[in-house]
């Protein structure tokens, strides 16, 4: 490879090569430049050679000497350690290989501009050394005439723009000119808000979607929605590029924290007199008796939030729209100058973007009906939010949010109470749905955040004081800040100083001290909502931070870099992680787990297309053939389409044609002021209606209640009784009916008896019930004799070793090992799944639940079929709330218990 002679033609050859001749290394004083040795090998050899001393070094004047001896050893140690180090660094990495794991990319990793800033210089040098420098678009020589023309035009345009910018803007000196405030962005009433105008560089990418405030940060670290296929008109992070399933489980449950940028959630502000607002809220389903009575005082004062389901009226009844959070602005104090006859109040309604359009239309319609009227504002791109959960979540928030007035009388009561929350490890331990609202200073002034001092674990006094504070909750007496409801305050908060000036102030501050806030620093209004999960009281609650849209980014930077005392930083999550935490808490995730709502059904339809496409991609021999697949007892074919949760089949409606995904745009939110699609199309599309948990349980408890319409479904959580998991699209059956005339001669022969008839055997119900584990109160006797009779299950620790060995051997010999390879007739000894008449629903989410350590699934079941099944069940059978789950395309069903959620 290297030139043979240093002649002219060889030089030309060097120039023609893409990679230039490598640098020459000299070794041991000899010059290898012309020897033709591979420079890489020379380098390798060089690095691997370990220095050694001559024998003279260990001697003194040719005689043995202790100090010389020791020095020789010391030298050897140094040399060897050096050698180890050298050979390690020999495997040097390119700049793009040194990018942190979660930021690593595969495509265009050679592109200098795509590595982090701190590595760009190095990468540029490396690429230049390789004679493959990254081309700068500006300096590239256009190849074609057209390209040259375009480049020239662009250049001229650029010059024009510079000239235009350079025009004097300074009107201050001019006489007769009045300085005015910067214009506020308009929020038109009763109309859609437009997304913030992106800078021109990124405008083209945001035509059909909006970026979250933290988009740049997330796009480097997470898999985002596809550019052409945004979710709810937002580019939303789906999941981290790193492996994150188990780390998320740990961070959300055991130690650490997980945070999400939830700015895509939509906020609608309503303003009007209390009576009108009450009527409006009642009409959308916020009509709990307790809310409007004495119990709801705190809610109506803005000290608590309400979260629940909102619904709307149609001709045939009520339709559930989706979950929402409603927060009131606290009422103005009596001391205001103009006591209105009917003081106007404000509320925020926070909803999921997939139901925004539906809710917006409904609220707008209702608002116009009210007298005096209610004003509706769309605050979608005005208010952003961050959610954070996990034991370290409170600590993180305390570390990054510093009240604007740090001490003294100006410090808001809410800010003071917030600062005293150090030591709270679960946001759910605060009063339910508590609201904290105060103003914070620019988070960049306190960046990088430092550890806060937590009370020691064994400090009982502090713990007691904290618990007492949480129980008495002093904030019930002090009104929360109203700043976030105030458009002016929100706008002022976004006018924060430049990063440059912040850096200067940081530099001027004393070492180790933070810069002080100036009067020019705007306070950032903030609202913190807590929520707890319903099921286990110990499950982690969640903080939701509402702040002006543009303030989310600096808060986010502080948040993800906060050093937790339990080690590491808070993790970030995408949609998958959010779904996972919901699943592990045993709650359903909107809209995925609610196919009974319009948004949920849209999601389901989209999933169908994806699953079907995935199925079709598989080669024919390797995919499940849905039509010919055997369900046992000579039943052929999957129930419904195998790739879908086929609710249409369940309720006997006409199946939707397999959509191409084009119609999914209907319910996504519309950021254009163009008239949105009529909601009638949504109604047509949703064959099933969601019944909320409360109604479902009340129907279930009253035995004589009339059955709801066949199309009503409700969400249940399934816990598998034994092994196995259920995956999405799995079919849920109720236990088959008992046939009274049948002879229960044997339950194990279920499969053999059924081969002749097409009906499944009548004994299946008993066979299924026999799968139930024996109740746990029959504890085995502790003595060893009885243990040896039993199966080798739980030996007490004090069993002597020989005994233990013998028992183990016995237990191993008793059970013949499973056959290998497994027989094809797998599952033939398993009870057969019931017929289609017993199909009650489908699983929407299901996997192994790390929190419970077993298979758990969340699905939707037809309410009337469940009620039928429960009513026909015998008393005392222990069969209540049992069902059978079977994965789509599998023969084996598994027994599960369900509970309404």
């Amino acid at each position: 490879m290297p030139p043979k002679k240093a002649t002219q033609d060889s030089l030309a050859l060097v120039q023609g090569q893409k990679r230039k001749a490598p640098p020459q290394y000299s070794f041991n004083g000899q010059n290898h430049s012309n020897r033709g040795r591979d420079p890489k090998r020379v380098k390798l050899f060089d690095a691997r050679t370990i220095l050694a001393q001559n024998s003279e070094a260990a001697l003194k004047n040719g005689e043995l000497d202790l100090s010389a001896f020791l020095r020789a050893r010391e030298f050897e140690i140094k040399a060897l350690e050096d050698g180890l180090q050298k050979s390690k660094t020999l495997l040097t990495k390119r700049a793009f290989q040194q990018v942190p794991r979660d930021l690593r990319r595969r495509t265009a990793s050679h592109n200098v501009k795509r590595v982090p800033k701190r590595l760009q210089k190095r990468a540029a040098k490396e690429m230049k050394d390789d004679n493959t420098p990254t081309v700068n678009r500006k300096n590239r020589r256009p190849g074609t005439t057209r390209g040259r023309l375009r480049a020239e035009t662009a250049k001229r345009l650029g010059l024009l723009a510079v000239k235009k910018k350079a025009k004097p803007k300074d009107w201050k000196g001019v006489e007769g000119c009045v300085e005015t405030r910067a214009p506020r962005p308009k929020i038109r009433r009763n109309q859609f808000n437009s997304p913030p105008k992106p800078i021109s560089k990124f405008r083209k990418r945001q035509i059909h979607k909006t970026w979250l405030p933290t988009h740049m940060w997330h796009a480097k670290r997470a898999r985002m929605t596809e550019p052409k296929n945004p979710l709810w008109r937002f580019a939303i992070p789906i999941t981290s590029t790193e492996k994150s399933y188990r780390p998320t489980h740990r961070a959300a449950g055991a130690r650490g924290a997980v945070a999400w940028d939830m700015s895509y959630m939509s906020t609608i502000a309503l303003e009007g007199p209390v009576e009108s607002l009450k009527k409006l809220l009642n009409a959308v389903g916020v009509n709990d008796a307790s809310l409007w009575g004495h119990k709801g005082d705190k809610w109506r004062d803005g000290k608590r939030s309400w979260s629940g389901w909102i619904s709307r009226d149609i001709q045939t009844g009520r339709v559930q729209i989706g979950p929402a959070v409603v927060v009131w602005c606290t009422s103005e104090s009596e001391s205001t100058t103009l006591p209105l006859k009917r003081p106007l109040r404000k509320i925020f309604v926070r909803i999921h973007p997939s139901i925004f359009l539906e809710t917006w239309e409904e609220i707008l319609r209702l608002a116009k009906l009210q007298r005096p009227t209610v004003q509706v504002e769309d605050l979608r791109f005005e208010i952003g939010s961050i959610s954070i959960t996990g034991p370290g979540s409170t600590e993180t928030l305390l570390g990054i949010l510093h009240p604007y007035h740090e001490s003294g009388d100006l410090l808001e009561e809410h800010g003071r109470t917030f600062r005293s929350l150090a030591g709270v490890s679960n946001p759910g331990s605060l009063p339910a749905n508590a609201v904290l609202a105060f103003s914070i200073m620019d988070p960049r002034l306190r960046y990088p955040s430092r550890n806060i001092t937590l009370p020691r674990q064994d400090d009982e006094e502090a713990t007691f004081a904290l618990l007492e504070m949480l129980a008495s909750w002093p904030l019930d007496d002090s009104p929360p800040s109203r700043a976030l409801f105030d458009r002016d305050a929100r706008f002022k908060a976004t006018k924060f100083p430049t990063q440059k000036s912040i850096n200067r102030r940081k530099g001027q501050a004393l070492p180790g001290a933070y810069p002080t806030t100036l009067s020019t620093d705007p306070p950032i209004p903030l609202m913190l909502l807590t929520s707890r999960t319903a099921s286990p009281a110990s499950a982690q609650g969640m903080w939701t931070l509402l702040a002006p849209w543009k303030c989310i980014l600096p808060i986010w930077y502080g948040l993800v870099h906060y050093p937790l005392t339990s080690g590491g930083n808070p993790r970030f999550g995408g949609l998958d992680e959010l779904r996972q935490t919901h699943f592990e808490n045993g709650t359903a995730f909107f809209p995925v787990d609610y196919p009974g709502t319009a948004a949920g059904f849209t999601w389901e339809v989209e999933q169908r297309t994806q699953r079907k496409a995935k199925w079709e991609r598989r080669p024919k021999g390797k995919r499940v053939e849905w039509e010919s697949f055997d369900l046992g007892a000579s039943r052929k074919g999957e129930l419904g389409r195998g790739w879908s949760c086929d609710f249409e089949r369940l309720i006997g409606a006409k199946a939707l044609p397999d959509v191409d995904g084009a119609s999914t745009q209907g319910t996504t939110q519309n950021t254009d002021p163009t008239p949105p699609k009529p909601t009638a199309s949504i109604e047509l599309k949703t064959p099933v209606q969601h019944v909320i948990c409360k109604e479902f349980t009340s129907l279930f408890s009253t035995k004589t209640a009339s059955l709801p319409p066949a199309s009503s479904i409700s969400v249940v959580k399934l816990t598998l009784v034994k092994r196995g998991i259920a995956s999405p699209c799995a079919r849920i059956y109720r236990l088959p009916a008992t046939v009274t005339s049948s002879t229960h001669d044997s339950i194990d022969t279920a499969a053999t008896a059924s081969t002749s008839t097409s009906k499944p055997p009548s004994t299946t119900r008993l066979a299924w019930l026999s799968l139930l584990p024996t109740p746990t109160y029959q504890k085995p006797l502790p003595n060893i004799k009885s243990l040896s009779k039993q199966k080798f299950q739980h030996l007490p620790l004090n069993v002597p070793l020989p005994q233990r060995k013998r028992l183990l051997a016995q237990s191993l010999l008793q059970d013949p090992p499973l056959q290998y390879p497994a027989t094809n007739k797998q599952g033939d000894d398993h009870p057969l799944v019931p017929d289609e008449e017993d199909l009650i629903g489908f699983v929407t989410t299901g996997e192994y639940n790390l929190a419970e350590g077993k298979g758990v699934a969340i699905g939707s079941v037809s309410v009337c079929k469940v009620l039928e099944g429960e009513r026909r069940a015998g008393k005392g059978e222990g069969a209540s709330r049992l069902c059978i789950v079977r994965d789509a395309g599998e023969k084996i069903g598994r027994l599960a218990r369900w509970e309404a959620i």
Partner: protein
Amino acid sequence: MVRIKNRYLLVNILYPELDDATQKGTPDVLAINQSTTDALKIKDLTGGIRGQVRQLFGDYGSGAISDNLQVKYLSPATSTFILRVSRVHYQVVWAALTFMTSVPVKNGKKCVFRVVRVSGTIRKAEEEAIRRAKEMIIKARRELGERSESNLADIFGKPPTEAEILKDALMVDADDSEEGLSDG
């Protein structure tokens, strides 16, 4: 693809026989672990081993090690070297080393080649050499019962207590006895 498997032997050259130079009360440790003559070059060492192998195993042996035997490190001052042999035939080389009785140079001193470590990577052999050198320093100092004026603080931090020294010494012995088994 199958990797070529090697073994790395860490070998010490020991001089158990006392000659005139070491008569006058120098400690045994120094004498036994004294430096090797500078005349011993890498070429000589490999030549000596090859000769010994041919003598012991004939053509088979010399053929087996001919293309793989290599001296990776040779330090005459501390009488230590590291050999690379193919994994299949390392015992051939070991046996040859055992039978060598003098330094393979002209008029070489009487000596013993002691294989102290057989490892699969050179890294481990180097680490072992470091460990042994450290132990040797402790041993030498203890034997003499005096502190060396050279600066050892950067290697050990603080001078070890008597108990630590004792523990180290015990560890040395245990290792020595296991050496033969620890190939692998």
